[in-house]
Each structure stands twice: as C-alpha cells, then as structure tokens.
C-alpha cells in the first residue's frame, strides 16, 4: 500500500485491522468517535466483531472477556472514558491479559474539554486503576509512528500478557497526514497455553485467569511476578529519540504532539545559532531514563514541554538525577505550545 492521506483516528483503526485486530468494543466519546465508527463499518468486512458497549465500563469488560480467549482485541476512548475503564484495566493487568488501548487525550480534569491535551500522562504511567500494575505506554508524535506502534502493539501485549496503551491526542486524532499502512503479522506466542477455550488441547487442563489471591503470601508472590515483568519491560522495551544533544546547552524533554512542535522550534533556533536539542520519550512506561544519561557536559538546562501542567517533570528530574535545573513550559486543554512560544522560552533560558 502506497502512502495515502488519512485522518488520524481512521488511520489508527485501519492499522489495527491490518495488524489482525478481530474484536473492538467501545463507547462514543469525542474526539475519537471515528475509530469506533470506522471499526463498525470495516471490522465485520474482515470477519471481525464490533460491539458498542452500553458504557466504557461495559466495553472494557467485553475487552477483558475477549482478551481472555487470546484474540486480538482493542478499544479506544478519550480521557474521562479511560477513567471509567480504569477498573477493567487494573483487572486486565492483574489477570495478565493482552489488549490494545488507545487514548485520544482531551483536556481535564472532570469533563474538562473536548480539545487536544496530554493531560493523562500520570494516569497512563502511574496507575489509573488500583494496585501495583503498569501498562506499556507509547506516545507517538506523527501519524506514521502512531500506525507503526499500533500495529506492533499486540506483539508486546502477547509477549508480556499485559495491556498496551497508545497515547494520542486530539490533534493526532483529527489531523490528516500521508501515511502508509501495511499488512502486519502479529506474534501471539503460545497463547493457547493460557487462554480460555483450549481445555481439550491442554489435555483436559483448565485455564483459570484471575487476580484474586486471598492468602497474603500468594498475593505478594503474584505482585513480585508482575514486578519482574515490568522490570523486564524497563530493560528491553524502552524507545526514545535523541535530537542534536551532542553540543546542546539546552535540552527539551517532550513527547507526542508537543515534541513535534518543539522539533520545529529546535530547527529555527539552530539556524539562529542556539544550541538546543531534545530527548523525546516514545515509551512513557518504561520511561527512558538512560536517554538522559547521554546528555553531555555542554548541557546546562532542561526544558520540559507538554500539553498539561507539567506531568512528566518528576520523571525528568529522576532521570537527570537533578544534574540540571528543569524548567517547564506548556499549555493545556486545547491550547498547544506554539513554535514561537517555545523559541522564546528557550532564548529566555539561554540568555
């Protein structure tokens, strides 16, 4: 397939279908409605199943049921909808079930707004639901990167038997961009060894998928096992991009749409002789701490740029071990940091 001009939400849906997604359960919420709409029209053409749940709560539990059978299942929602799904997400993680979740983020808290935002960084990376669990969280910054990460998401969901979340924002969802979507073959691993529906194949041994362990020692053992998995993700699955950090005096830390805007600002600033670079986390969990260890002695300052009130800043401070002062610049709830504003902020820091 050659490059075609597609809206972000529709590209996400088509990418998922081409990667073998067979089941989609979701509930309408702006600004991601084109994903379920596209799925309802096209998934049945590919032999798949689309159901509109009566709520986000029901939808994520339909995802849980389908995930327990080892099929390629996904849902998409936007911020308040993800809050409602958080119970189910905790159960999915606790019962070690693979699925793909897309959050097309909008402004919060509460009903917030319907315009683009990155207000769910903390919800996605530090919890959302109850208990010690982690999602593998991707924050793509272009539509092509979104497509590629959505398509490979099931590989990791099945590898780790864990939900994978793709964090997009309203800009990426609504913008049109040229994008190439190829057929993608997912590796589901030995899923029949754990999934429901394989009683006879397993030699009359049943599958029991659960997160409840009333004996404290067993619950702790379960948590230790989960933690080992998250540690393995931290070692093996980090993704990030480094831009012009070798001689950078100021390094921007940014992801998703904010990083894309900041990249343009860096180009302009470099033309004017300002030495600015960027660390762009692509995985928000696992957070790419080692990327910040690559900063050289020329770096004097970090500028965290996000479309929220500074949710990543603590991770950046941990990653830099407070070697540098860390400033923040951002807007939220539909206002994005402009190229000019970022340039101005960088110049102000650099003096």
């Amino acid at each position, binding site marked *: 397939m050659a490059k075609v001009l597609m809206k972000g939400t529709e590209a996400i849906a088509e990418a998922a279908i081409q990667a073998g997604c067979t089941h989609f*359960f979701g509930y309408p919420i702006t600004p991601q409605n084109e994903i379920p709409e596209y799925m309802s029209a096209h998934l049945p053409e590919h032999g798949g199943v689309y159901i509109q749940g009566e709520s986000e*709560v029901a939808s994520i539990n339909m995802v849980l049921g389908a995930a327990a059978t080892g099929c390629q299942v996904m849902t998409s929602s936007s911020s308040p909808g993800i809050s409602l799904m958080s119970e189910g997400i905790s159960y999915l993680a606790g019962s070690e079930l693979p699925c793909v979740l897309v959050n097309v983020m909008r402004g919060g808290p509460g009903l917030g707004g319907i315009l683009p935002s990155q207000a769910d960084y903390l919800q996605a990376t530090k919890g959302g639901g109850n208990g010690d669990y982690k999602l593998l969280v991707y924050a793509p910054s272009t539509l092509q990167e979104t497509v590629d990460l959505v398509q490979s998401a099931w590989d990791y969901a099945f590898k780790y038997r864990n939900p994978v979340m793709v964090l997009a924002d309203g800009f990426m969802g609504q913008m049109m961009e040229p994008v190439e979507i190829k057929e993608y073959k997912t590796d589901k691993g030995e899923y029949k060894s754990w999934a429901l529906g394989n009683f006879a194949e397993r030699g009359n041994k049943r*599958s029991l998928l*659960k997160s*409840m362990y009333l004996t404290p020692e067993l619950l702790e053992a379960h948590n230790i096992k989960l933690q080992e998995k998250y540690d393995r993700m931290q070692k093996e699955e980090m993704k990030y991009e480094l831009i012009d950090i070798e001689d950078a005096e100021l390094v921007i830390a940014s992801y998703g749409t904010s990083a894309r805007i900041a990249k343009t600002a860096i180009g302009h600033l470099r033309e004017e002789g300002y030495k600015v670079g960027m660390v762009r986390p692509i995985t928000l969990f696992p957070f790419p701490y080692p990327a910040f260890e690559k900063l050289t002695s020329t770096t004097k300052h970090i500028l965290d740029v996000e479309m929220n009130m500074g949710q990543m800043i603590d991770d950046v401070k941990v990653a830099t071990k407070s070697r540098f002062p860390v400033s923040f610049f951002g807007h939220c709830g539909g206002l994005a940091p402009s190229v000019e504003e970022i340039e101005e902020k960088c110049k102000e820091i650099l003096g």
Partner: protein
Amino acid sequence: MSETKVYSKPESWIKDVHTHYCPGCGHGIAHRIICELIDEFGLQDKAISMAPVGCSAMMYDYINIDYVEAPHGRAPAVATGIKRSLPEHFVFTYQGDGDLASIGIAEIIHAANRGENITAIFINNAIYGMTGGQMAPTTLIGQKATTCPLGRDPKLAGYPMRMSEMLASLATPAYIERVTLAQPKYIQKAKTAIKKGFQNQIDGKGFSFIEILSTCPTNWGMPPVKAFEWVLEEMVPYYPLGVFKDFE
C-alpha cells in the same frame, strides 16, 4: 424390575473439595445442578464461566472448567467478550443479587437486550452475603440488614427490584424463568429451568435468564430449615415463581 441409581459427585466437580459456603446456603445446590448439567450435556471442555464478586467469587475452586474473574457486576459484559470470540463454546454467568441487580444492572440489561447467546444464572437471596449482610436491591420491605437495621423502608430505599419481570419487558431475551431451591421438588424444577437455559444456548436461541430464589441463613439470622421456609413464606409471594418469557 427395579433400577439402581447411584448418587455420586458430578465429574466436573473438582475432586475432594468442600465448599466454603455456610450450612443452609443455596450456592452448593445451584453449583451441583450446574455441574450435573455440564456432565449431562458433555460440556466440560467447552464450558467457560466467570467468577463473580460475592460469596461465589471462588466457585472456580469447585467447578473444573475454564474460568476468568469478572469485576463486580461485569460478568455479562465479560461473557459478551468471550462468547463473541468463541461462539462454539458454552458460556454461562453466575451472579448474586448485589452483583447483578445493583452494581451490574446496566451490564445484565444490555447483555439481555443484545440477545447475547449465553445462559445467565441469577442467585437472589435478598441480601449481600460476602460483605456481611448489607441491604440489596432485592431486600424485602421490613427485612433487616446491617445497612437497614430497622428493616427496609420503601420511603428511603424504594421497593425490592424484580429482575425477571424487568428483563421480561425487553423484546430480545429468549427465556426468563424464576425458580427456587426451597424444597426438593423445587430443586428439580430449578434444574429443568437451567437445563432449558443450557439447551437454548446450544440451539443458538439467544439470552436465557434463570433467577433462583436462594437462602442466606447466616445473614438472615436464622437456622437453615427456617431459612428455606422463609423463602416460601416471604420471598415467593413478592417474587412469584414461573416463566416470564419463552420464545417458543
């Protein structure tokens, strides 16, 4: 010629386990009916169920089939996801009245209304058992519970919800019947009803719902024999037994 009938534990009952249920609780009887039917239909390798939240949260410790845990009230949504992925498998839910009629009321109504081809078993004992005897949507007027210590007051909590009647108002469901476990003759009728719910799914008829009036002697504060009498004296007049919907 006389026939010898040997009563033994069902094959799908996990060997050498005893339930954690209180004396006089109906769960054990309902579990046994389900296991007998799994055996009679030869469904052990095809049956999938969800552990609900409530006293039956550990029913997978007794019934040897594929199980996944459902969050509180969400079993009908989880069952939807399973059945839509594995349409040739046999999927049944098993929920209590707090789980189904309170926190999970949206999930059961919509699963019923979509006509999911599943069998839903609803254990109604008019109280929250696992959490220690709080008021349920099904608690009778005047019935005492830890969160209505003077008895359920309809001015404060409304009247008990009749789930079978409510679901029977929907156009889609195939079969809805209310039964009880209060006496052996009723247990046989309960088994016949659940068997029909099983057969409906196998025949692809859609959503079947069997409400079982059951007991909770511990939280009702009465001995087991009295509890079974109480079902017939107090529950059945408000929750009439019978078929509320049958597509045939």
